[in-house]
């Protein structure tokens, strides 16, 4: 229950944004400082963090859509057809 409370859509999205900013930072670092460690970090860790942030966003959107679908039949009953 505690984990569910922690993982509210808002918090997940905020975390995803922070992760994406970290990933973008790694990409930009490798452009300005093209040495082995920055380049390798950008092409490995940066990609993983960026992918995780995008997946987190997609999970939130999917959860939101599912919640919307569950609510829809209630509203549909009120319609004339």
């Amino acid at each position, binding site marked *: 229950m505690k984990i569910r409370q922690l993982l509210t859509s808002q918090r997940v999205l905020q975390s995803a*944004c922070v992760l994406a900013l970290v990933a*973008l930072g790694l990409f930009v670092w490798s452009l300005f400082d093209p040495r082995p460690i920055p380049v390798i970090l950008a092409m490995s860790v940066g990609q993983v963090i960026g992918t995780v942030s995008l997946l987190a966003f997609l999970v939130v959107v999917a959860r939101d859509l599912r919640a919307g679908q569950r609510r829809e039949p209630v509203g549909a009953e009120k319609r004339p057809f």
Partner: protein
Amino acid sequence: MIANLFSYASLSCAAIAAAILVAYLVKRPPLSGVVKVWLLLGLGVFPIGSAVAGNIQGYQTTEKRAFCASCHVMSPETSDSDDPHGTSLSSRHARNALFGADDCYVCHADYGMYGTVLTKIGGMKHVWMYYTQYRNVSAEDAKKTIALYEPFPNATCMHCHSTTDELWNALPDHKASLAAVRADRLSCASDGCHGYAHPNARPPGVAAK
């Protein structure tokens, strides 16, 4: 050191994505349809654009001599290539526009079917060895232990020097050693032929002088 179009593309995408993400973090709007689209751009489209362009740029960067030279133990080899008046094989080839600033990669890349991947794996091995063994070793000391894993393949030379040209075969030494050169029994970059590619180079397994 922003180099080319891919760098600019990656940087632009990163800047746009960062602006969207910071705006979201500051304003924290409820998750409406419009916000979802903005977040899709900020978390998906622009970061992917930045990553793709950055990867291409990163890949090209790893082929540059300056990238190899960023590990100090490679400086004897790279400074030899950099020398505009050098007479070593590497220096003479680096002055050729076909090699230019990418000469380390052009000569040391694996040109087999999975050559690019194998070359990159080999590069990762070099990075690992640098940070575990050579980071605190002086370039002068490193020269004594750094050597090729395997003999330099003549096939790499034969990308350009095909050994089929009339002019090439007109040289008696070339003609006499043709079969041995093609079979890798006699290295082009060896003492009796064109000399080693770098002043401090030596065949694998041979101790440093």
